[in-house]
């Protein structure tokens, strides 16, 4: 049996077309929510010419922390419903965070004569994203440890 993978939703499960309609619907609903959240934040905090894309950077840092925390919590609590993990992990957080906008912005900054800003953006995204994921990973370990909740599953209904 394969080890559960980060960013997937925990325990080994049916794969490919074996997912039920409930799981696909959950991912679609989560995908809608995550995409719209990112879209609205982009409208509220639009990228300024020549500056770092702060909104995307913040989104990716927050998303990395939350997904890593949930991943370790769900490893400790695999009884959490699969459709719920799919809705939040690949659904909301997968769609909320974005990779394509990061490399595209870095490319554009470089093309428009600001390679240092583009490089700084890539570096900050990787370093802060990894730091956030590492912090989330540890936080989830602590929260997911037996006895950290009352046993009725405050995190995993």
């Amino acid at each position, binding site marked *: 049996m394969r080890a559960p993978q980060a960013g997937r939703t925990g325990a080994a499960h049916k794969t490919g077309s074996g997912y039920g309609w409930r799981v696909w619907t959950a991912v679609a609903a989560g995908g809608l929510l995550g995409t719209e959240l990112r879209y609205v934040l982009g409208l509220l905090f639009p990228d300024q010419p020549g500056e770092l894309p702060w909104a995307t950077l913040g989104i990716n840092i927050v998303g990395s922390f939350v997904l890593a925390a949930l991943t370790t919590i769900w490893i400790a609590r695999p009884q959490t419903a699969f459709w719920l993990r*799919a809705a939040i992990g690949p659904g909301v957080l997968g769609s909320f965070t974005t990779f*394509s906008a990061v490399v595209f912005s870095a490319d554009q900054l470089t093309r428009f004569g600001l390679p240092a800003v583009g490089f700084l953006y890539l570096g900050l995204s990787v370093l802060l994203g990894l730091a956030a994921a590492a912090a989330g990973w540890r936080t989830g370990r602590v929260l997911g440890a037996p006895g950290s909740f009352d046993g009725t599953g405050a995190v995993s209904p």
Partner: protein
Amino acid sequence: MTALLVGLFGIAGALTRFAVDGWLAGLPSPRRHWPWATLLVNVAGSFVIGLSVGVTAVFGPEWHSALATGFAGGLTTFSSWTTATVRLASERRYLAAAANILANLLLGLAAAAAGLAISGG
């Protein structure tokens, strides 16, 4: 109108990413896990966001947002990428973790530039 298009394309991106993840996880593999699915969707989405630049002139800005913010944004993921890297590091697979960072960055940048070149942006 734009918000609706972005949402619908975001759903399509998320479902595609989930399908790729499930499909690759279902393939029989003797190797230890490495986030191939995330690399695949991130490179594909980076190509799409590059391509999307040419869409504005032809179809209008709302379709550019649908493709770039919606589909490419929904298809690619940053949180799975960082979380999988931390997981590899936690298993002391430092080389695999570094390869994950470099492969996504280099191939993603190349794919975005290729999409941009094709779209004439």
